[in-house]
Each structure stands twice: as structure tokens, then as C-alpha cells.
């Protein structure tokens, strides 16, 4: 059973086309994330689903109902039974926490009251029920906004960058709390974010968007391991990029090694992308064979649980286009030292040059 379906959605603001024939489907009870850079149209898509943006072209279905379709009068937001959590929370300043959360509950019942009270306690807001939003911290406001959206038992929950207003240390904890709550209540959710780590953590289904189109859909690990384009591959962090020509033997030869390129004819220029975490350093002699890429260290910076290395080819040092490696744990070779690396081929992605999608 599908929770949310959007078909053939196109949308423009004036002459600017923001969405181009976007279709997606979120199954009941799952959490899906729209991941993409700012301006790719993900928030607009969310607002169309909620009914806050008038549908120009396409079809939107929530649960069993069509709520909007080209050429037909659409269901207004108040009739769609959709929960929406805004980036700036949009808590009503003139109402207390309790009144905010209960705002959408038009037919109060014993059950809902009990659930609301329990949820408030679960989220650590006990004792704040008669405080006003401005008296709460950012994290507390975020939780109130979430509860407010969930209290009226919506068919689906939409979240617009729900954690971007929180500072980094808070974020992980609140994220986890939110995900637990969603899984517990079993709500279908569609979340918009530009943070890839957040998207991977929260979603059962990941949809990558760029410039008004959905570029790839799948589970987070699928997209991480099998990106369909350079754009998707580089979404998860800075990535090493090399240009090369396909050789006659169907492989490319680069500083970081030789990699097979099936299906691409010889002489075609390609981009070879290697994730920083795909460079494994030989940290002690006798660690096995396969460490045949030798690179000179420019700098080694520890960043907590991993070390970030800047590397150049010792024969042809090009400091402008240094390579990056991310080594788990602490590994601090001296600057100028040469280190041997083994490249994990599952972290190497090869695409035609010049294509973004």
C-alpha cells in the first residue's frame, strides 16, 4: 500500500522551471528522504504534496485518495490530513506548548490526550507544557513542532529540513529520537535534506534530486555503493576526481591504479572518481600485498575518529589537485614522507566525462 504518490509533477515560478516531470512513491510506513543541493526543487515538491503550493501539472495521491490532479479542483491543505514540519518550526508564539501540540486535534478524545501526554514526556518536554515557544531551546522547539504535526494522526508526515536549525552536537541525538518516534508510530514520512549523512541515517528509501529531477532512487546503501552518475557519487562528501582516456584493453590507467571500464569504447574520455575512504594506507610493513600506489604526504590532519591526508604523486607533484584520503583512526605520517596505498575498487566510480546526470 502506498502512503504517498506523486506523478509527473512539473512546476515553474514565472519563467523558472523548478520541477521537471518528477514522480515518486513512498510505501506505507516507510521513511523516505529527498536529498539534493539547495535550489533543486525538493522543498517545492514537499509543499505541493501538502497543498501549500498550487499544483500546476501532475497528480498527487495520499493513501487511497487523489488529492490533486491537473485540471481538477484540488483538496486544500486542511482537508488532506497531512502533517508538515517546517524548517523554522513555525510554532505559534501566542500558544503554550500544550496548546500548540493540540492545535490540530479537532476532536479531542481520551486516547489522543493520553498519547499526547505520553509523547511529551517521551521527548523530554515534561514540565514545559505551559511554557511558550520563545522560552524553549532550539532542540525543544523542534520536538514540539514534530509532536504538533503528529498529534492529529496525519496520513503522512512531511519534514522540511527538520534538523538544520540545530547545532551539530544536538543534531545526532534529536535525529535518533525523531526516527524512533516515527518508527514507533508507523507514520509514512517524506523528509527533505541536503545533509547526506542525515539522509542515509533516517531513510528507508533515498531519492536524489538535482535541478528539478529525480536522479536516482533506492535504499541508502544501494545509492552509496552504486551511484548512477558523478553527481550522485560526489554527494556523500568530497571525492577524488581524475580524468583519463579509456585504453584499448578496456581499462583506464591512472595514478591511483588501473581499473576496468566495461562497456565503454577505447579512446573515450572518462572521469574516474575515488572516495577518500577508498584509499587504504599501509600503516605497517608486512600488512599484506596490494599496496602498490605510492603517494607523498603533504599534510596529515586528525579529525577525531579519522585522519585526513593530503597526498600528491611523488613524481609529478601537483599541489593544486592533491588527493584526499580518509584513514580510520589516528595515522600521522610526516609531511614529505611516502606512503603506500591500496585502492578499494568498490569505492571507484567511472563515468563519461562531462555528464552530470
Amino acid at each position: 500500500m502506498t502512503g504517498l504518490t506523486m506523478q509527473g509533477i512539473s512546476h515553474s515560478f514565472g519563467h523558472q522551471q523548478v520541477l521537471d516531470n518528477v514522480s515518486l512513491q513512498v510505501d506505507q510506513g516507510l521513511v523516505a528522504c529527498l536529498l539534493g543541493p539547495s535550489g533543486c526543487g525538493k522543498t517545492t515538491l514537499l509543499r505541493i504534496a501538502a497543498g501549500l503550493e498550487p499544483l500546476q501539472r501532475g497528480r498527487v495521491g495520499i493513501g487511497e485518495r487523489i488529492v490533486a490532479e491537473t485540471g481538477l479542483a484540488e483538496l486544500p491543505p486542511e482537508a488532506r490530513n497531512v502533517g508538515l514540519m517546517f524548517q523554522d518550526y513555525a510554532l505559534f508564539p501566542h500558544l503554550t506548548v500544550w496548546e500548540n501540540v493540540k492545535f490540530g486535534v479537532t476532536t479531542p478524545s481520551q486516547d489522543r490526550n493520553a498519547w499526547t501526554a505520553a509523547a511529551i514526556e517521551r521527548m523530554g518536554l515534561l514540565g514545559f507544557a505551559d511554557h511558550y515557544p520563545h522560552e524553549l531551546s532550539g532542540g525543544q522547539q523542534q520536538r514540539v513542532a514534530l509532536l504538533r504535526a503528529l498529534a492529529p494522526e496525519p496520513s503522512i508526515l512531511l519534514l522540511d529540513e527538520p534538523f538544520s536549525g540545530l547545532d551539530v552536537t544536538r543534531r545526532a541525538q534529536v535525529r535518533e529520537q525523531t526516527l524512533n518516534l516515527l518508527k514507533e508510530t508507523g507514520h509514512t514520512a517524506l523528509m527533505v535534506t541536503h545533509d547526506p549523512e542525515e539522509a542515509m541515517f533516517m531513510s528507508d528509501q533515498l531519492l536524489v534530486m538535482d535541478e528539478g529531477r529525480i536522479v536516482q532512487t533506492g535504499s541508502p546503501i544501494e545509492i552509496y555503493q552504486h551511484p548512477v552518475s558523478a553527481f550522485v557519487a560526489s554527494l556523500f562528501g568530497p571525492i577524488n576526481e581524475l580524468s583519463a582516456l579509456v585504453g584499448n584493453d578496456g581499462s583506464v590507467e591512472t595514478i591511483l591504479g588501473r581499473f576496468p571500464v566495461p562497456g565503454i569504447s577505447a579512446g573515450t574520455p572518462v572521469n574516474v572518481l575515488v572516495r577518500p575512504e577508498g584509499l587504504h594506507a599501509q600503516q605497517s610493513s608486512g600488512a599484506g600485498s596490494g599496496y602498490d600506489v605510492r603517494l607523498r604526504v603533504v599534510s596529515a590532519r586528525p579529525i577525531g575518529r579519522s585522519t585526513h591526508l593530503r597526498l600528491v604523486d611523488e613524481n609529478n607533484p601537483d599541489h593544486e589537485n592533491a588527493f584526499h584520503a580518509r584513514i580510520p583512526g589516528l595515522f600521522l605520517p610526516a609531511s614529505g614522507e611516502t606512503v603506500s596505498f591500496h585502492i578499494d575498487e568498490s569505492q571507484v566510480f567511472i563515468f563519461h566525462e562531462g555528464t552530470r546526470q
Partner: protein
Amino acid sequence: MTKISSISAPGGSTLAKMAWRPDRWTIGALVTALLITGPIVAVFVIALAPSNGIWAHLSSTVLPHYIWTTILLMSGVGIGTLLIGTGTAWLVTMCRFPGRRFFEWALVLPLAVPAYVIAYVYTDILEFSGPIQDFLRGVFGWGNRQDYWFPEIRSLGGAVSMMTLVLYPYVYLLARAAFLEQSVCVLEVSRTLGKTPWQSFRQVAFPLARPAVIAGVSLVMMETLNDFGTVDYFAVATLTAGIYDVWLNMSSVSGAAQLATVMMTFVIVLIGMERLARRGRRFHHTGTKYSVLPDMQLSRPRAWLATLSCALPIVFGFLTPALVLADYSLDFYEETLAGDFLIYMRNSLALATISAGIAVMIGLFLAYAIRLRDTVVLRAAARVASIGYAVPGAVLAIGVMLPLTRLDHAINDTILSLTGFSTGLILSGTVFAMVLGYLVRFLALSFGTLEASLGKITANMDGASRTLGRGPASTLLRVHIPIMRSSVLTAAILVFVDVMKELPMTMLLRPFNFETLATYVHQYASDELLEESALGALSIVAAGIIPVIILSAAITRSRPGRR
């Protein structure tokens, strides 16, 4: 991906085939705007009707005189308020002198006093038989008019002085806001380039503040054009006075309407001036760096001069009339209360309350309709409906009266022919006509205040309420209005007070034997009985203080980088 059509099969589509459904809010807003602009359009229509040669008669006799006098009056007041308003605003923002913090808000006080009230007071004091001349004659031993010269207050010059004294706060407020907005850097640069304070003012600060000052002067001129009480009392023949004369004495409504059309050209020029000035303000924002403004410490003698310059407008514009009226009230309150004073008070309060209530509702409705459907049509409708503040009360009275009269006659004739029963006049010459007139004139106050306040509420609030199940109307009631509470109150107070003070329109539109405090005071003053109606005048001033208090609170809060 499953085709959505299979999902929709069970219940069938719940969406109606889309016909063009006229949208409640847009229609409501357009109808309202139409009602409000109706009277203004009516003036033009009526003016084009044949007038039995009145126009020719007017233009060959009094029209040039009316026009010239009006121009002189407006120019005089414009210059006077420009000097006092800008000068005091500069002193108060840029210089340090004793009492400066007090003057900052106190300079607004004369706004509480309507022009006609201050005119009555000063005439009373300064006329031949008044206390000042009495005193002078006693001291210098003069006998009668031939022995000395004393300025005649009942003159064009007198009218200019009176209006300048109570209208300069408009320029003061806008100039002050402009000076505060100016980036500190600009002025500091000016000083480091060797300019003296006076040169800084003339070459840098004033030009930057010019748009705001022009907007202020336009407002002042609109109020001058509107005035009836002062010019009537002083027998200054302006266009407004002419309208009354032609309508009431010559019984020619179309002649009055033609004079009104002439006035509309002035109004259009003034509106154009004000709008251009407001648009110019955008380009005069030199930066957003706010810090404590550098105060120029004035030398001792100059500082005291500054104090004096700020004190005088308050003393003459507010203190004197207030004290004189208080004095009279104490002497004569028994006579006042024995008369129909309480009835007039009740009338004023009722009219003001009703008008304020309706104005707020219409203002909210228009502002919210624009928020829901931001279309060109709606914005234009709102702007047109807000034009009333620029149109003189006398003109509006004509525009309200005549269509209503015609409507009344039509209703009467219809019912007469149907039932043989004559309904008489049910709309014109009633409180309904007055309230309509007030709405047309003061809607801008309510709409402007509410629109600004509504704009501060983020769009996501609307989205939150809608997704939580509340429709647009419910959202307005449960989210927007509670958040905007104080602004709604402010809008209501502004309209309330302006209706209390209103004279020109009330004079023309009131039913027979119906007096408000304003008309009562005007009547008694004209009959040389100001003392007896002083309590009424004082009540009007007291009502006028309330918006001044609100303004002062806003002023003290508006200092960036509060010291």
C-alpha cells in the same frame, strides 16, 4: 511503480471537475474597494453634470481667489512645518543639549490638538478684547486700535501659524526616522572630510532625508487642504471654505462638486509627491550599520538655544491651548454639563467606536485577502481603497451625499409606486452616511497598520495552521489576530481618535440637530462662546493624546543601539 489510477478506483475521484469558482476573498475585497472608491468617483461624475452657469460664474469671480489663497496657505504651512519639523528632528537626533531626551517624544504632543481648536484658543487670547492685548494696553497705556499695531490673528498669516503649530509633528516624525536610519558612516565621513556640522547637515544629512521630509510635507499639505474649522473661523477663502459657501449658501451642489474637482488636482499632485518620495527612500538607505550615533556636544549658549527651539513649539502648540482650555473648563464646567454636552459626547464616542470597529474589520479583511491571493488586481484595489486619507473631507462629503441621496430617492419612488407608502430619506442625512464617509477617509490608517503587522508573521505560520486542519478564515481568527492583537488595537485607536477630531465631513453629513463634540465646539467658538464649550475641546485633545502616547512609546523604542 503502481499506476495511480488503480489506487483511485475504489472511491472514485473526490475532486470536482474544475470550473472557475469565484474566490470569496477576491470578490469580497473587490466589492469593498468599490464601495470605498465610490464616493471619490462620484465627485468626478457629478462635476461633469450641467451646473446652470455656476461654473462660469465661479471661475470669473471667486475661483481664482480660492485657488490662490489655497496655494498660499499650503505653501506657508509647508514651509513652516518643514523648518520646525526638520530643525527639531535634527537637533534631537544629532546634538546633545539639556532636555533632549524629553523633547524626543514631547515634540509630538501638538498632534493631539486639532487645528480648529488651537485656532479658537489663540483667537480668544490674542484678539482685541483678549487678555494679551488687554495686558499690553494696560502696560503701555494704549487706548484703541489706532494707537498700536498688533498682528491680526484672523488672517491668512494667522491660519498658517495655527496649522504649522499642530502639523509640524508629521514632518518631525518622518525626518527623525530618516536621520536615525542613516548610516553613521556617512556622517562620520562627512566630518572627516572637514565639513562643519552645519555643512554636514546641509550637504549630506538633509539630502539623504529629503524623501522622508517630502513625504511628511505632503501629508501636512493634505491636512491643510482638508481643514475647514480654521479657515471658516478666520474667514480665509480656501477651496474648502468655497465648497461650503457654494453648497450651503448658493445651494448649488454641482458647483460645489466642481470646486471639489479642482481640489482633486491638488490631491493628485500631493499623492504623486508623496508616493515618489516614498519610493525614493529605498535608494537613500546608505547601509545598515547601526551603532550609537555620534552626538555633537553643543557649546553652552548654543545648547540652551537648542533647548529653547525645541521647547517653543511644544509650549505654543500644546501647552498653551491645553492650559487655556483647562482654565476655561474649570470656570465653566457647570454650564457645560448643564447643556447637552453629554449627548454630544455620546454621539462622538458612538460614531468613533462604530467607525473604528468597521474600519478594523475591513482593513483586516483586505490585508488578509492580499496575503491569501497576492494578485495585481487585489493590490490595486487595496491601494485605491486607501486613497481616502488624501481626499479632503468636504470633497468626500459631496461624494457620499449625492449618490446616497439619489439612491434614497430611487428607493422611495420604487416603494411609493409599489405600496403607496413613502419611506422618506433613509440613507442620506443619517449616521450611515457619516460612518461611510469616515470609512472612506480613514481606511488607509487601519489598512496600513494592519498590513504592516500582518507582514511580520512568517508565511510558515499560515502553512502550519492549514496543514493542521484549519481553513483560511479559521487561521485568521485563531492564529493571525491573536498574534496581531496590539496592532489591531492601535489601528482601532487611530481611527477612533481621528473620527473624534473630524470636523469638515461631519459638518456636512450630519443629520438635522445632530452634534458631535467637534461641531459643538466649532459652533460655540463661532458664537464667541468658546469658554462654555472648552470642556468639549479639552475632551477632544484628551482623546488625541492617546495615539501620541502610543507614538512616544514607539519613539523611545526606536533608537537603534539604545543608549
